[in-house]
């Protein structure tokens, strides 16, 4: 049996609009994933600590505040620092095309803007996790 896909969903920073991320959480749950939701106003440190402890395949963040150019890189850097560079970081929000190019260059795996369907997000995550192989020796 294949391992269950585990995803952490969080809202970093100060905006409190969590309707979108809750819709995504429900879609992931219904797709058979284990979704860990850590809620509002999370610092990058809190998000990365949770991602490491929960051994998730991916971290999804929703940012509607405009602070994405600060928060995404901060999360990426901390993930790397904690040895979790193989954890996929993806997100959604109000993000300009120019910023999207820069963020992808920096290492964000995928970004979604208004209009994205839950089906396409679910399908993307399934295939992205499948491509991520680990050959780490256990013992």
């Amino acid at each position, binding site marked *: 049996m294949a*391992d*269950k896909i*585990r995803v952490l969903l969080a809202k970093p920073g100060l905006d409190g609009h969590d309707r979108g991320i809750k819709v995504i*959480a*429900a879609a*992931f*749950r*219904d*797709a*058979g*994933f*284990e*979704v*860990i*939701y*850590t*809620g509002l106003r999370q610092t990058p*440190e*809190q998000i990365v*600590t*949770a991602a*490491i*402890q*929960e*051994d998730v395949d991916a971290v999804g963040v929703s940012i509607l505040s405009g602070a994405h150019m600060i928060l995404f890189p901060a999360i990426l850097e901390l993930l790397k620092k*904690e*040895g*979790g560079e193989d954890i996929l970081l993806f997100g959604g929000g109000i993000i300009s095309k120019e910023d999207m190019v820069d963020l992808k260059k920096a290492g964000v795996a995928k970004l979604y803007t208004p209009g994205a369907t839950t089906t396409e997000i679910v399908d993307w995550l399934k295939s992205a996790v499948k491509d991520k192989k680990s050959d*780490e*020796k*256990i*013992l």
Partner: protein
Amino acid sequence: MSLYDKFLDGSVIALSRIISHIENLRPGYQELLSRLYRRTNGIYRIGLTGPPGAGKSSLVNLLAGQLADDGRRVAVICVDPSSPFTGGAFLGDRIRMQDIPVDKGVFIRSMGSRGSTGGLAAATSNVTVALDAFGFDTLIIETVGVGQMELDIIDACDTVVVTLVPESGDAIQALKAGLMEIADVFAVNKSDRAGAEQMLYDLKSALEMRTEKSKWEVPVIATQALHKKNTEELLRLILEHKSFLETSGQLSHIRGLQLQKKVETVITRLVFRDISSNILSDGVLEKAVDKIMKGEEDPYSAGMRLYKRFKLGS
């Protein structure tokens, strides 16, 4: 360097990934567990159980923080239900545990129940072994929200806290078997709500009616996790129970019983694996059902026939 070596080096991400190996029963997990078991130090395990929405996670949030402040190395396992339809889960306990500062080294792991119906996941007590071997000395296990009969927690911990709310029922509910029997400590949370006094009274009188007297008198305490009311007192009662277990010899007694069940579980799982790979392979079961539907056999003799075949084969 193997994952296990990194684990021995104290790497948190290695611990986290080892937990996934155990949870997903990846090849070699038994060998991994027996190595980990040999490094355990008898971690003290507190279990929190009770109905959904009673405030278990919020209490864990405060208890874990207090224990960490006292210099203990604390881990938390919180279990939430997995969907019986899709296998998916929304693990939302962590959201209540925001007061635990990240720098305190408290390790929190959420688990989906994944088909188990006893309030925990099948792998929960095995994950405990990894946390113990890693060096944590205190563990809090939070069950899924339970009803009256999801009691797996008693086999996975040393002290059971049953968390209720003023609306959890009357004197009749307090007398029922199951959940109401397993508490080492009762916490009536959200005790600012109407009916809290009555609930406390009903619990206390139900306890007085017990004929099987233990040397441990089960305390009943009113708490309010939201306002941090009486939560320090709750922790004091929990730790008092811990001392009782240690001084009365009860601790080694219950751990002995738990180990007996553990070995049984290991055997049952192996036998079950054999059954599913030998008896239930190659459409044997489907063929049997076909015969039963045609009226050529009945389910009872089909079961006995297949079991006999398995026994002869082994």
